[in-house]
């Protein structure tokens, strides 16, 4: 039977899989660009594309670690806490950082602008969720201290 703990487990597995894929991408990206995009190290795009990918991998890896910690807190039934609000804030700013990176590279590849716009949207959604958590924490505190 499907329940919230299984759903949480699935999310944690997906996060772990994504982290492994991220590491694989970091290791095999030069080869992938060569084999699938036909871009080699003599091509003008090579260094720019590689810089874009590696620059975005850093915040992406950090965000996955933060996501893992957030899921750990939720699994431990620590949901509406200051710690989770801080983690959501980090996730939101991480999205904005990715948006900034893709925004800069948008001058070289137009599709990067679209990814930047999506990252900004994701960052905003995360900020709204953070605001909801902040308000929920206030309600929880009031409820906890109602005798």
């Amino acid at each position, binding site marked *: 039977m499907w329940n919230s703990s299984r759903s949480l487990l699935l999310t944690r597995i997906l996060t772990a899989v994504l982290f492994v894929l991220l590491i694989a991408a970091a290791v095999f990206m030069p080869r992938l660009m060569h084999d699938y995009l036909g871009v080699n190290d003599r091509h003008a795009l090579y260094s720019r594309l590689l810089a874009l990918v590696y620059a975005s991998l850093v915040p992406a890896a950090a965000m996955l670690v933060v996501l893992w910690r957030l899921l750990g807190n939720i699994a431990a039934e620590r949901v509406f806490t200051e710690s989770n609000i801080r983690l959501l804030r980090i996730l939101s700013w991480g999205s904005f950082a990715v948006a900034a990176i893709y925004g800069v590279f948008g001058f070289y590849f137009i599709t990067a602008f679209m990814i930047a716009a999506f990252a900004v949207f994701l960052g905003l959604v995360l900020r709204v969720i953070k605001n909801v958590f902040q308000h929920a924490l206030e309600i929880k*505190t*009031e409820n906890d*201290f*109602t*005798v």
Partner: protein
Amino acid sequence: MAIIINVDVMLAKRKMSSGELAERVGITPANLSILKTGKAKAVRFSTLNALCKALDCQPGDILEYREDE
């Protein structure tokens, strides 16, 4: 906070222990401690009713308003 909880005073007047009051009111000793230390954000009418019944007093004997300094 401007609202002062005088449960300790009433407990002393009635010569009753905190544990006994918690049991009579039906709240945990931890919650009674929250109330006594002034950390409570709100008091339910049902709790206030039970407190007044257990301590044989009026709400005004338990709650006091003092202007913030």
